[in-house]
């Protein structure tokens, strides 16, 4: 068994398997949430709450009441830096778009690799800064569980291995490509069963909160 054969497995059966588990898990979690149902609201509603729901999805992304200092600025700034960096890297690197095209048939223009590279570095630095914050802030230490470190590593390793593959650091490209794709597959497998599901549930819960507040006629 050489690395070329390993890469073949990772690009073929390994990818199918992890994507299958990912979709299985996400559907399982979402259906569990949706089918649970909600208690019937007996009060007369002020409005349907739909508009308020969408407003809340947006407004919760902004600094509270326009004042960034009301949330820990460290988390706010690096949290955004990480997520923006991550999305640019995932969505605008040509080889990644190629994956989307082969899986979904969708394609869009890519960004030049040096630009993507900058965003990858931003995301990596932000992730490390957030880990440092988690390790040093007494409040964060109190709230942190082992799973938080797990999901940090699950996110960090694909970014780092992709960055290293592109720059030929430490290992030959073939090895790093195999490690990169394998780490993404591990991320996909564990995604539905960890806090990473926030990518799917975040906007649903924001919308629901906003809708409930809207029906009651209060600000959310």
């Amino acid at each position, binding site marked *: 068994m*050489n690395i*070329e*054969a390993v*890469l*073949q497995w990772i*690009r*073929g*059966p390994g*990818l*199918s*398997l992890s*994507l*299958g*588990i*990912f*979709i*299985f*898990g*996400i*559907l*399982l*979690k*979402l*259906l*569990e*949430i*949706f*089918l*649970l*149902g909600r208690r019937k609201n007996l009060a007369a509603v002020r409005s349907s709450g739909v508009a308020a729901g969408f407003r809340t999805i947006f407004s919760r992304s902004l600094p509270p009441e326009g004042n960034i200092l009301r949330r820990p600025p460290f988390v706010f700034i690096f949290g955004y830096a990480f997520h923006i960096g991550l999305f640019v890297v995932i969505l605008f690197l*040509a*080889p*990644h778009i*190629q*994956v989307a*095209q*082969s*899986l979904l048939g969708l394609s869009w*223009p*890519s*960004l*030049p*690799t*040096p630009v993507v590279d900058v965003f990858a570095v931003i995301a990596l630095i932000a992730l490390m800064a957030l880990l440092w914050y988690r390790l040093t802030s007494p409040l964060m230490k109190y709230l942190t569980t082992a799973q938080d470190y797990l999901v940090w590593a699950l996110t960090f390793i694909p970014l780092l291995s992709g960055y290293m593959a592109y720059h*030929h650091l430490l290992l*030959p*490209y*073939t090895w790093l*490509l195999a490690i990169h794709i394998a780490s993404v597959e591990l991320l996909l497998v564990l995604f539905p069963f960890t806090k990473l599901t926030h990518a799917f549930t975040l906007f649903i819960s924001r919308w629901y909160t906003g809708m409930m507040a809207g029906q009651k006629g209060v600000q959310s």
Partner: protein
Amino acid sequence: MKNDPSLLDILRQQGVSRRGFLKFCAATASLMALPPGMAPVIAKALEQARRPSVIWLSFQECTGCTESLTRSHAPTLEGLIFDAISLDYHHTLQAASGTAAEEARKTAMEENRGKYLLVVDGSIPTGNAGYSTIAGISNLDMLKEVAAGAAAIIAVGTCAAFGGLPHASPNPTGAVAVSDIITDKPIVNVSGCPPIPVVITGVLAHFLTFGSLPELDHLGRPMAFYGNNIHDRCYRRPFYERGQFAESFDDEGAKKGWCLYKLGCKGPVTYNACATTKWNNGTSFPIESGHGCLGCSEPNFWDMGGFYNALSEPSKGTGNALGWGVAAGAALGAASGLMARREKDHASRSHQQVTVDDLKREESP
């Protein structure tokens, strides 16, 4: 052997000047990533070198490797070096046939036991011995017999180095590489389909000069030629960086010579010297002709997920696993959700109202 002319004598006879010879030595030294001071050493060694006996065995192969090494560049120095070894057995090139040919092999083996070089092209079938035989001898038996007395083995071409096309799925003949069978001799894998001519002459020159084999990578290939990947040395690399890709073989991007990554180029995972030494006397290499790299110098390149699928694309249909994922996720999710709902209904049905009296009763001793 004693009466054989030296390599330089042969080159002189063929009209090669000393200057031309030294230029070749310098080029070989730089190709092999040796310090410039090594060029005179190579020249001296080659001048004095007696023609080493080379036995060339062809197993499950297409003769493309022999074509590559001998035919395309007849008057070059590389070609002469190739003539200048004592090629005692090569059943495509030798005049003798039948018993006479096999006798030549036996004689060469006996006279040069422990000193001859064995060159192998083609993979070895391990299934039915009858899949490939020479003079009634199976490839497996012949390889073992000849390898036993060889100083070193050069596996020329991807078939001999890694199994190549015969090894491709489903591998009906049970084809394997030389290194899968011979484990007690130094083996150099000169992979490629076919390999670059200068790579084998470089390896030969290294063997003649130092009496040893060049530094090899993890797949047994000479580092000097297989140290860099095609992608890093490709003249189209700037287009990759800028995100300018040919989307089909006849679109505007293809005409402008943009990157062929999306058309399945395997340059990023292919380690070979094509982009620097090029082919046909330095004319060009496949990417320069508008076609992506197939990755022919890598193991299992026939099964690397399709020649025209981009490297990042899944190499197998993902449909089945995704379908199962959707079906199982929907079914289990629905079941789990409904069970939770039932539990909730049950809880609300069996919920008992707590009155102020109940609470007061609990407080009393």
